């Protein structure tokens, strides 16, 4: 087995008849920040829990740095896990909270204090050292929880929705912290719904829907799978406009406008600029009221939506 940080082989998890994760094959290189994307119920949390050794796969295997994970303790030594929903112990001070997890990981007494101090410094909570954890703000608790996952200096960090519930300032701070951790050589898996933030910090991505991995790779790799598109805003006579657009050269598919944007027609288009200009000219000649006409960008969000929608459409067939 090559030295990948994380590798899953046909990983499958069923809850009764429901398949939460379906033959997942992940390959994540050491030192990368892997953005795990997917709508609610896609199987991201189930996957992360299996990677952390907290959940038994129904079948398939998990390898962390080449080591087959069969026990929670094997994973615990390699992985730092931050769940999506977490609580804190009341009546414990911030340093005691980290000290507790350091003890749980068997860190020697001589090393414990410096570990706790170092982590408080890293997550910028040194000033709150003696505060009670229940009195910290949500953002601070989030950082403390991240610190707890780092207490035994794991090679891999599994962060389930670490930015949920954070205000914009706290998100920026978290992003900086993740960059620092990447520089420290950690491999990080990050699940999130905030796609544009993942785009900034992740080196690789995996997109999941309904338990299946739809795509994985760098943003560039994923962009190659993206189909170019046009967005055309027509103020009136939508039916005629869609018929006309569908008959033009370079148009692959005309999508029905979404309910929230009833005048916006999305067009899958692989034509060149000449063909795009001709399309606009023909719409103008037909005296259709065009308010907007532009090529869509290659954002992660669009790619994500495209892949997920394709998957859903395919399943419905």
């Amino acid at each position, binding site marked *: 087995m090559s030295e990948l940080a994380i590798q899953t082989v046909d990983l499958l998890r069923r809850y009764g008849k429901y398949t939460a994760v379906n033959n997942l094959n992940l390959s994540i290189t050491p030192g990368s920040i892997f953005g795990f994307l997917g709508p609610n119920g896609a199987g991201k949390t189930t996957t992360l829990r299996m990677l952390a050794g*907290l959940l038994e796969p129904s079948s398939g295997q998990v390898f962390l740095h080449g080591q087959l994970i069969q026990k929670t303790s094997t994973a615990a030594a390699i992985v730092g*896990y931050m769940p999506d929903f977490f609580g804190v112990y009341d009546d414990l001070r911030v340093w005691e909270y980290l000290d507790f997890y350091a003890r749980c990981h068997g860190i020697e007494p001589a090393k414990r204090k410096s570990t706790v101090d170092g982590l408080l410094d890293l997550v910028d909570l040194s000033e709150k050292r003696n505060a009670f954890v229940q009195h910290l703000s949500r953002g601070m608790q989030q950082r403390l929880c991240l610190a707890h996952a780092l207490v035994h200096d794991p090679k891999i960090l599994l962060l389930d929705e670490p930015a949920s519930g954070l205000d914009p300032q706290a998100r920026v701070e978290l992003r900086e912290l993740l960059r620092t951790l990447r520089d420290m050589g950690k491999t990080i898996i990050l699940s999130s719904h905030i796609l544009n933030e993942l785009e900034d910090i992740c080196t690789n991505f995996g997109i999941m829907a309904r338990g299946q991995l739809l795509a994985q790779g760098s943003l560039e790799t994923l962009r190659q799978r993206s189909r170019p598109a046009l967005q055309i805003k027509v103020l009136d006579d939508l039916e005629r406009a869609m018929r006309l657009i569908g008959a033009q050269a370079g148009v692959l598919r005309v999508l029905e406008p979404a309910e929230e944007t009833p005048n916006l027609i999305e067009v899958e288009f692989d034509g060149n600029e000449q063909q795009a200009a001709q399309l606009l000219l023909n719409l103008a000649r037909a005296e259709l009221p065009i308010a907007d006409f532009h090529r869509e960008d290659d954002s992660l969000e669009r790619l994500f939506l495209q892949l997920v929608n394709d998957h859903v459409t395919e399943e419905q067939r």
Partner: protein
Amino acid sequence: MSNRAASRRWRLQPNPIVVKELRSRMRGGRAFMLLTGFLLGLGLVGYGLFLRATTGQNNGAPIFSAQVGQTLFAGLAFMLLFLVILIAPAVTVGAISSERERLTYEMLIATNLPSHRLLWGKLISALSYIALLLLAAIPLGSIVFLFGGITVRHVIQAAVIIVLSAITSAMLGIWASAMTGKTGRAAVVSYVIIGLVLGGFLFGAEIWTNRSTDPVPTGLLAPNPISALASSLGTLSGPNSSGMAFEGIPRAAGGGPGWWPGSNPFSNAGLDFPGWQTFSIGIYPVTDQFGPDGMPIIAEPRSVWRITLIILIMACLAFFWMALHAVKPRRRWMPTWGDAAMLSVTSLSLLGLGFWIGWWFR
């Protein structure tokens, strides 16, 4: 750091759960308020027992100091037994379930801490608080030594029964907490089981005595810590107005096995506190012989407490074993070599102990 190296390292360190629980539990006023209430309650009960034991004196009847000591000791021992049996699950029913409820469980089991250390930590931290209650009760309990009438053997027997009942009760709470995953549900399960064990078996013994002249079967007495404590205290002093046997002091006063209440100088008083007759039901087997005063001779109280200790130890181990598997994140109910080893060592030890001392047959 390998798992084995980590295990070696923290094996020499205090249990993290105990450190955390002690740090957080003793903060705030709740623990101290419970301790104060506990001691006040115990003190009031002690004072009530003292008044009750000395009421005869107001009517001109002679009261032996030892009699007061015995009544106080037995009354306080029962009170302590009830309190620890009721308080122990209250401390432990949230041991595992509250971790799940406040969403800290996954973070905890994702560490290198093995399941058995997690459970030990929870048990020891709960018991340390109960031990604090018991230690705090010692000055109050030691008042009985001023009156006399009790032996060190009785103190040790009562202490062993109370402490083992507390451990079992705490373990029951942890088991319910691990199995149900909800603190409320765990509390209901624990207290229903405690109610059935304490009340159910006494009720069964009561029905038996009403319907049969045969001695109450050991199976109805031994599982109940109340009957166990009564069987131990029964040898301390005996007869009250309803006529029950005596061993310790009556022997010193010229009595012996096969005693009859009429010749007992304490017979008009003895252990006299509310509930004693109920608690000691089935403990004194009535013989078909009669003493010179025409009263039936009552045999020595049955030593069911020995079997009770074995039952409590086995119950503790069973609860621990089930809780140990229930807290595992993976392969919960798959038997391990550790299970097999524990089962073998426990069975052999108990069998050996039982046969060697002859406890099974007494």
